[in-house]
């Protein structure tokens, strides 16, 4: 499915991914996290040339192989088999993170537990409950040129994941640039968090009502269909 084709049965996850794909520009080096971020690849138009970075040591991962064609050694960082695109390369984990820390990653797309109006990200630990570890998230959040957060607006208890201050231990401070949820698109700027688009059929009032963070508005708020 290409961009602009609205699928009537599109899930909220696919819609978030389709919106996130609009941020992808020609020539970018991109790392996709697990979950919704992984779906973004499906919505990037064919004519947009990008290289996907996987922190387990690949630059240039391609689509999922056909069943039966998997090479178990050739996987993305989520452990799923991938293929390669022309120009791909393999390297060790130190080099994989050299690419990140050196600032060569144009964009990373991450899921979160909480994200604050200042761009603080919490996504690796719920103390005493769920402690998966940070994996590569600290380096990705701290060093990618653009950090795109894709998440549900509310957690499973109905609480806003977009908050004034993170309550959970941080992954990185002040690192999120753009937040895309099933309700809205929000941009972190110097002077606060701006609501720039609502996801159809939500209204500006719906989004403000569902958001714990202070949302600012500058001019017209767009609608993403």
């Amino acid at each position: 499915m290409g961009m602009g084709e609205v699928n009537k049965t599109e899930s909220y996850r696919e819609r978030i991914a389709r919106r996130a794909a609009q941020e992808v520009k020609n020539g970018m080096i991109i790392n996709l996290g697990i979950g919704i971020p992984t779906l973004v690849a499906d919505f990037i138009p064919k004519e947009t040339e990008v290289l996907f970075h996987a922190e387990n040591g690949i630059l240039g991962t391609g689509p999922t192989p056909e069943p039966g064609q998997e090479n178990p050694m050739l996987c993305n960082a989520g452990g799923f088999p991938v293929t390669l695109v022309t120009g791909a390369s393999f390297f060790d984990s130190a080099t994989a993170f050299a690419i990140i820390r050196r600032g060569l990653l144009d964009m990373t797309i991450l899921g979160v537990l909480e994200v604050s109006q200042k761009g603080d990200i919490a996504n690796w630990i719920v103390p005493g409950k769920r402690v998966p570890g940070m994996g590569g998230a600290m380096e990705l959040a701290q060093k990618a040129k653009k950090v795109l957060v894709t998440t549900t607006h509310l957690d499973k208890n109905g609480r806003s994941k977009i908050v004034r201050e993170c309550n959970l231990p941080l992954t990185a401070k002040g690192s999120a640039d753009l937040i895309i949820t099933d309700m809205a698109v929000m941009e972190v700027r110097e002077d606060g968090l701006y609501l720039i688009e609502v996801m159809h059929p939500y209204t500006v009032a719906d989004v403000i009502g569902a958001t714990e963070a202070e949302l600012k508005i500058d001019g017209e708020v767009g609608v993403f269909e």
Partner: protein
Amino acid sequence: MTVKPVGFDKVVTVDLAATWFRDGMTLMVGGFGGVGNPPTLIQSILDNNIQNITLISNDTAFPYIGVGKLITERRVKKVIASHIGSNPNAGAQMTAGELEVEFCPQGILAERVRAGGVGLGGILSDIGIGTIAEKGKSKVTVDGREFLLESPLTAEVAILHAKKADRYGNLVFDTSARNFNPLVAMAGDLTIVEVDEIVEVGELNPEEIITPGVFVDMIVQSEGVNWRWAWEK
């Protein structure tokens, strides 16, 4: 008694390599999510009933895959890793106070292993500043920028997987199964590599060798992966 091959032919049996496995050893393992973990050596650690391991590994894989088995079989008392989320047994043992877990950001873990492996006294990095990853680390200012001092990691025994080795231990890895393996190869006081294919010295093109054999102490023939991958139906 433990013996190590002398000279330039380092191919040994798994049983001989296993004489180096000890209760309480620090063990570094190459791999990422089980990909690039050495299956035959891990099985040997289980079969030899080795206990109380301090494990240094990127992650704890999955319950029945790779290093994940060492966790599931409760052979590990402490793990230094970046991620344990794909192995629920690791989380459960940590919560129950049975497994000590030291988390380290993945790229910093790679550099700490590398630092140990290349004989450095530590590395300076700004990853995790302003987070709980700072805890217990000294801060060092260089040209006005603040860094955390990260300590090097080595291990008594390092085990890893490669696709191909010559009998001296020059190594070629397998696509994304390279990951931590070349770093781990350098950081063991004793390094044992498990390989899919052993060739004679001279058969590898020096240009394609990723890890020079000088870092490798022993080579064993792999019996292949003895688990099903999480993605296999």
